[in-house]
């Protein structure tokens, strides 16, 4: 099983780089890294944290409803982001998790925001938890619903923002992610107007990033994209991030989830 997964990841990575001539000399390394993914250690840690009584209310996350019912994690992430009546908002896996950490465990939202992205001095609990929760949809197909009006609105807002050009670089997401085989320096850029490549992206986040020596979620990915675009700091769990994630994940519906991914 594990061996098979490595193989799939490696093939997918090669496909992702499309017609880029740089694919071949890089392929060996990508496959070697994909076969043994340190991100698995975040999944294990997230599992431990999920069932542990934590926070001021000393509660586990077993009552957290990710859309399939309290504590039901199997396949939940495959259907996120979606609308939740209790928060009257569309939430992705991470914003939903944080709602539960605040409501059920009593953590302070502002404190979570400060530590949600780990660094070389400190591992993040949130990143580990997201890795674990997302991994419970492994092997299942992405199936993000559009039924509530807010889901439609969020999805369309995400699409709009994907194409919205702004800031000193005049960039929107589309300018780096609109054509096949493109790179910034030697960083391959998936073409997110191509459904196959979009599926490859949405089914492999969260991912372990070698450059970060850390597991990262879409929150981090989008934040760094905006940083490179010379725009202000993307607010943690902001509606911008949920909207873009809604757009990407829904576009990627049908992709078989296999997380954590391994990326550069």
């Amino acid at each position, binding site marked *: 099983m594990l061996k098979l997964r490595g193989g799939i990841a490696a093939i997918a990575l090669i496909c992702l780089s499309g017609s880029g001539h740089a694919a071949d000399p890089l392929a060996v390394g990508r496959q070697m890294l994909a076969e043994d993914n340190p991100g698995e250690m975040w999944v294990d840690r997230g599992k431990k944290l999920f069932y542990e009584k934590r926070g001021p209310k000393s509660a586990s996350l077993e009552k957290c409803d990710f859309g399939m019912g309290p504590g039901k994690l199997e396949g939940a992430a495959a259907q996120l982001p979606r609308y939740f009546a209790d928060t009257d908002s569309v939430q992705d896996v991470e914003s939903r998790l944080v709602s539960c950490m605040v409501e059920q465990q009593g953590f302070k939202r502002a404190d979570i925001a400060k530590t949600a992205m780990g660094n070389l001095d400190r591992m993040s609990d949130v990143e580990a938890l997201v890795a674990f929760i997302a991994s419970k949809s492994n092997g299942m197909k992405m199936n993000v619903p559009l039924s509530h009006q807010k889901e439609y*609105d969020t999805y*369309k*807002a995400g699409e709009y923002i994907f194409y919205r050009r702004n800031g000193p670089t005049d960039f929107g997401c589309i300018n*780096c992610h609109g054509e096949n085989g493109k*790179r910034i320096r030697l960083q391959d850029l998936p073409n997110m107007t191509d459904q196959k490549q979009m599926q490859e992206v949405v089914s492999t986040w969260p991912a372990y990033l070698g450059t970060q020596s850390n597991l990262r979620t879409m929150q981090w990915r989008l934040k760094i994209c905006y940083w490179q675009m010379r*725009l202000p700091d993307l607010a943690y769990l902001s509606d911008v991030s949920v909207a873009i994630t809604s757009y990407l994940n829904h576009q990627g519906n049908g992709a078989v989830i296999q997380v954590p991914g391994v990326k550069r």
Partner: protein
Amino acid sequence: MRIKTGWAWSVVVAPVLIVAGCASLPDAATTRQIAESVVKTGFSATPEHAKRLVQDRSQQICSTIGSAKLTPEEASEVVKLARASIQYPQSGKLAGDWKVGAKLAYNGSGSRISGGNLEKAKENGALCSNCHVIDPKEFNVGNIGPSLTGFGAQRGNSEAMAKYTYEKIYNAWAYFPCSNMPRLGSSGHLTPEQITHVVAFLIDPQSPVNKK
């Protein structure tokens, strides 16, 4: 036959209509309104930095969604705005020092915002190598834009070519409306003087860009 078709339609369409009646994709104007308010509140920014999120007229025109194309009127408006934005260096000299330009071309930093603070850098880089192949021997280069190898060797280094190159870097949309290339001069990312150095780097016969 007609009846049968009608019946089949009612079965297939009716549930869709019911759903659509409650919730549906918002139209373009509504989407725009929602998305713009999402953008406004989605970043934590000082008032000064928040200005970067506000689109100018050209950026608005260039944000076509999906496979939508620019109309000829839109394209010419973008070109017109771009042409009007171009300012030339006070010295009047459009080709500066290619060695300075070389450093700028490979410098991908400057002007980024992190934790509310503007990146500390002596000057902004010209960002060229992020997206363009420059020296064919250098492999750490992007390919979003076309290769610049031999740029001057192919085009010469006449005054007219210097002017074209300068304008192209200052505001690429004067020639290619809504292209991926940032309007490096118009946005203030590069100064006119910095651009003259990059021009020299691209067209000077001594520059590695034009050496075999």
